[in-house]
């Protein structure tokens, strides 16, 4: 009953002096402390993890962010930076003994420089907004995570977001050139530069994908790229994922790098048909292939892709004739996650990576796991880069429902790692997978990461408990009540 005693201890609250300091910095309207207000921030896109923070602070400028961080630094208050809260690994999960620094008010596009192919934005600007401000001029911002309508550039930097088109275009790290960065002691640094090759270590390279554990970016300079002259999309129907996998291998062997190559298995196709009538063919696996580039190149390669799909056993190949048809072909793929809500009470999205050449083998083993765990798995994934998104269908009201789903999800991750892949291709480690890190990284590998962390954040206040495992997170059980360090220092008290 030790855990009960802890749970019943009154909630921590920031003391009046600290709150006054925060209110002076951002204005009293932008420091949230009422429980109903705080609950909005209790989780990100991974809703299974929830925690109510001490306060949510919403700064509007770099200097406000820096001043808020200085208060945290002085008082020893942990902080979690948050963009739109769409992350799927609990990276923006608040800390019950910390504050959330929300960057949603910082949503201005600061500069559009077409001549230099750069756009400078505040971190709260959405991913799609960057493309919107330049598309009329013939440019776009290449990283396109499926949440691009709402997810923020600051969050994309934290997670090194990719998207369906990253096989050809790369990730956030390939498109961000510079950032204004608030250090964990509240100083402001310029990392990188708008021109390439800024001198010294590539700090920006390690900040991108660091999940808010090294500091906070408050201005981001991104590269925009000219829109391709031609985009061609086809959907090929195969009897099985094996056959579709052969088509993927043949396309790669032919030296073709598609802009996107997405596969859906039968369970996914059935779900999207029920949920949104995408009009997909009734088949064992559907492969969506998109090529883009100069018309002469795109057209000649597209003909070959079509032929390679048929050679691999495609029963039908649908070619989008216009933008509306292209949108229709993508509709089922984009809606695949939400479609699962129609065929299963609950689902958990796994995010693992396998070497492309091991796809067929891993998919077959996942089918074996389905039987062993008596749960269904729908597979939808980025076939071009081996990034799997198995959707584990379960019912949380069934006996051990969530636990069984979690066990299956972890087994699938084990398959990915055994095949030489990775723990996460795009959703990040966050809180969700922090205790899985030792499955991929040795103690020495993690030690290097801890040292880098300590170089940026010696007091460990920036998003602690995410990305890097600690014994307290992953081994020890909660103990008896001891005064929180913030209580001892007087920065917070039990309410």
């Amino acid at each position: 009953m030790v855990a009960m005693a802890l749970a019943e201890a009154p909630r921590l609250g920031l003391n009046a002096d600290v709150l006054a300091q925060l209110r002076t910095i951002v204005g009293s309207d932008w420091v949230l402390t009422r429980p109903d207000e705080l609950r909005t921030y209790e989780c990100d896109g991974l809703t299974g993890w929830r925690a109510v923070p001490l306060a949510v602070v919403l700064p509007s400028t770099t200097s406000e962010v820096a001043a808020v961080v200085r208060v945290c630094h002085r008082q020893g208050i942990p902080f979690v930076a948050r963009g739109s809260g769409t992350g799927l690994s609990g990276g923006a999960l608040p800390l019950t003994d910390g504050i959330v620094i929300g960057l949603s008010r910082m949503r201005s596009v600061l500069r559009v420089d077409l001549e230099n192919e750069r756009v400078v934005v505040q971190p709260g600007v959405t991913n799609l907004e960057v493309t919107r401000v330049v598309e009329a001029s013939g440019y776009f911002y290449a990283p396109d995570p499926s949440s691009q309508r709402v997810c923020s550039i600051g969050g994309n930097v934290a997670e090194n977001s990719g998207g369906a088109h990253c096989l050809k275009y790369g990730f956030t790290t390939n498109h961000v050139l510079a950032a204004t960065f608030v250090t964990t002691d509240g100083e402001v640094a310029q990392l990188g530069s708008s021109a390439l090759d800024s001198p010294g270590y590539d700090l920006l390279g390690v900040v991108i994908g660091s999940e808010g554990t090294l500091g906070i970016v408050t201005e981001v300079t991104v590269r925009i790229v000219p829109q391709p002259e031609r985009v061609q999309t086809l959907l090929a129907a195969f009897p099985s994922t094996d056959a579709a996998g052969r088509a993927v291998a043949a396309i790669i062997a032919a030296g073709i790098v598609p802009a996107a190559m997405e596969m859906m298995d039968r369970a996914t196709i059935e779900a999207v048909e029920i949920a949104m009538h995408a009009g997909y063919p009734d088949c064992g696996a559907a492969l969506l292939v998109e090529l883009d580039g100069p018309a002469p190149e795109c057209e000649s390669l597209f003909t070959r892709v079509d032929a390679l799909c048929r050679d691999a056993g495609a029963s039908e190949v649908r070619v989008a004739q216009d933008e509306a048809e292209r949108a229709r072909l993508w509709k089922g793929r984009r809606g695949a996650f939400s479609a699962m809500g129609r065929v299963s009470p609950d689902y958990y999205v796994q995010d693992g990576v396998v070497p492309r050449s091991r796809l067929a083998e891993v998919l077959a083993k996942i089918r074996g796991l389905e039987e062993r765990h008596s749960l269904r798995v729908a597979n939808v994934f980025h076939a071009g880069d081996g990034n799997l998104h198995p959707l584990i269908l379960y019912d949380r009201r069934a006996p051990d429902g969530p636990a069984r789903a979690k066990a299956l999800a972890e087994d699938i991750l084990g398959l990915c790692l055994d095949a030489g892949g990775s723990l996460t291709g795009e959703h990040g480690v966050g809180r969700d997978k922090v205790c899985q890190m030792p499955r991929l990284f040795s103690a020495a590998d993690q030690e290097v990461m801890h040292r880098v962390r300590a170089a940026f954040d010696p007091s460990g206040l920036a998003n602690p408990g995410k990305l890097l495992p600690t014994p307290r997170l992953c081994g020890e059980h909660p103990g008896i009540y001891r005064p929180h360090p913030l209580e001892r220092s007087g920065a917070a008290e039990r309410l």
Partner: protein
Amino acid sequence: MEMAGEVPTRPGAPGDAVSGLIPDLVVTPGSAQEVSAVLRASSQRGWSVVVRGGGTKLTWGAPPRHCEIVLETGRLDQLVEHEPGDLICVAGAGMTLGRLQSLVAGAAGYRQRLMLDPPQGDGATLGGLVATRAAGPLRARYGTMRDQLLGAQFVLADGTIARTGGKVVKNVAGYDIDKLLVGSLGTLAVLVEVAVRLHPVADSSRTVLLEPLSPSEAGSFCAALRRAPAVPSLVEVLWPERAVLVRIESSPEGAERQAERVVALHPRARVLDEPEARLWEQRVEGRPWGGSGPVVGISVPLSAISALLELAEREAASGALLELSVRGTIGVGEARLVADPQAVSRTREGVEKLGGQMELHRSGAEVGRLGSASQDPVARRLMKAVKTALDPGDILAPGRWDWEA
């Protein structure tokens, strides 16, 4: 000096000198464990270690202050894995680029390549290409090692053997330590093994030449090229030749028709026949490293390419600038200058005035140090903290970065 274990060791000779410093020992470890033993021993004794791969870019960055040990990576040259279907390759950091290219070129009916063509590339090692971030004309389309590196095994100064990244293209697990290693000039860790991304080799290519051009014509041509429906793999602006060379690599039809589009951008642009194309490619290769004099890396904003070429005209007229090559679609290049500190600092000031940066890749000692870590004091403090965290005794190429600049 005694070195731990069975690591092959010999006394340093004048030919081993790094920026004039003759090492006491040259060691040639053949495994991560041996690298670890060398670094542990060096750390304990406070010996400075400079890593040498192919020895083609030891002059990059500021000269090290000390060099007791030269650690050669030549024995770390095994092919660990080449999976053509995954377009990846894992190899020892001491493998040369030339050898890697020949191993992956035609395996299993695939035609693939590591898309890097740095100066003196055949003899450069993979580890050296990570440490220097050296690249060549192909950077215009494929970037540098920063864009190709998927993972690495490395050893810290205290002997810790660790890995970062993996061997898959898509991977966001843990910190991207790879990025810190790229361009770190051997100051953070010794690379043992690297995993890189490969790209397919296109079936066909066409080369277009445009000459002679004024600086502003060349700048406008590059701007037009960036917007044109063509994806060149090479766009080299060559000064004082006043020429732009463009190469398209694609399917036969794709190459042909994209080349036509490039030609249509300027009345004097023309497609070269095969022998002439070969001739120009040879001229581009290894430029501007051929002659003597300091070589500097230059980057400028895209809008400043014309202005950079004007600067090149002025400095060439005064005899200070000997050669310049610029990747015209990304604003990055190299220049060879005369060995005159004033010429170097004047060029640097000019480049910085354009919003760009300049770093020293080869100097005469008379040119002085040019390895400032960063202009931003807070960023510089963070860089120093990273260096101290990974190499607290400052034994790995001490002085390569000028922290006080």
